[in-house]
């Protein structure tokens, strides 16, 4: 399995030389993740598509300024986040740690023990859930997370960025990022558990 972003530098060189095939390749890699990330800042998918397209224009024009200090992907996402914030300016800029805190405390007895322990997941759960159809269900679940949670889960867990990169991109402290990650993952796990009960 290829490490995301590891061979981007070669692609950037080809982009600078005007290689359209290299552009198709980076678009295939990053356009959908960009649209999904933008969607968490703006009200409509069509606006998110526009933001992503504008980001490509800005990135192509600014290629000369890309110095490789961050990965190409992080550089691209940073341009996108700036533009998406502007496009979604009606949303408060500060990231609220929105609640509720995933599934409530009814999972636990007043003493804090499990009221009903989680049902064990089968060992082949990944194979079952990655199957076509269910994978898109997982993305749908991520799409229903509150925006700040969705951004963090998308960047950290789906795209595999480091926590430091995500904090910088989204202007979060490490602590706030962990809270958002925790809440987002908790909800996704809960949705998966519900999904597994149905299978």
């Amino acid at each position, binding site marked *: 399995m290829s490490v995301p972003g590891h061979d981007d530098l070669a692609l950037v060189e080809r982009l600078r030389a*005007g290689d*359209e095939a290299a*552009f*198709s390749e980076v*678009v*295939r*890699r990053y*356009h*959908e*993740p960009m649209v999904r990330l933008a969607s968490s800042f703006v009200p409509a998918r069509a606006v998110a*598509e526009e933001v992503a*397209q504008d980001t*490509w*224009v800005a990135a*192509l*024009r600014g290629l000369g300024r890309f110095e490789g200090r961050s990965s190409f992907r992080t550089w691209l996402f940073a341009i996108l986040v700036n533009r998406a914030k502007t496009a979604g300016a009606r949303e408060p800029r500060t990231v609220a740690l929105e609640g509720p805190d995933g599934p409530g*405390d009814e*999972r*636990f007895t007043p*003493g*804090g*023990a*499990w009221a009903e*322990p*989680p049902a*064990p*997941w089968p060992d082949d*759960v*990944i194979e079952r*859930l*990655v199957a076509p159809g269910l*994978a*898109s269900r*997982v*993305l749908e679940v*991520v799409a229903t997370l509150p925006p700040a949670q969705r951004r963090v*889960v998308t960047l950290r*867990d*789906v795209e*595999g960025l480091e*926590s430091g990169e995500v904090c910088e991109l989204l202007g979060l402290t*490490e602590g706030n990022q*962990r809270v958002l*990650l*925790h809440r987002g*993952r*908790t909800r*996704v*796990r809960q949705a*998966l*558990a519900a999904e597994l009960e149905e299978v």
Partner: protein
Amino acid sequence: MRVSTLWRRDLSCRDAVRLVTDYLEGALSASRRARFERHLGECDGCEEYLREMQLTVALLGRLEPTDVRPEALEALAGVFRAVMAEEQAEHDDRGDR
């Protein structure tokens, strides 16, 4: 035995569940981490919960990128050609070529 019971009482399942992400992120102090692990060693429910959170993270990382819609690909190819032509024109204006 008494000591470990105390440890277990010290950290409830609710506490352990709240600490799962900090644990996975390596953000717990050594002593909290030890308490967390001690609790998990004695609690099947929390051990399973940690496993399910790890599976959730693994699963999210295994999602294949969605294909870009052909229309979007087409539009972006147009964008690429336009920007490249523009850059070339600027280049020419500056008399570099």
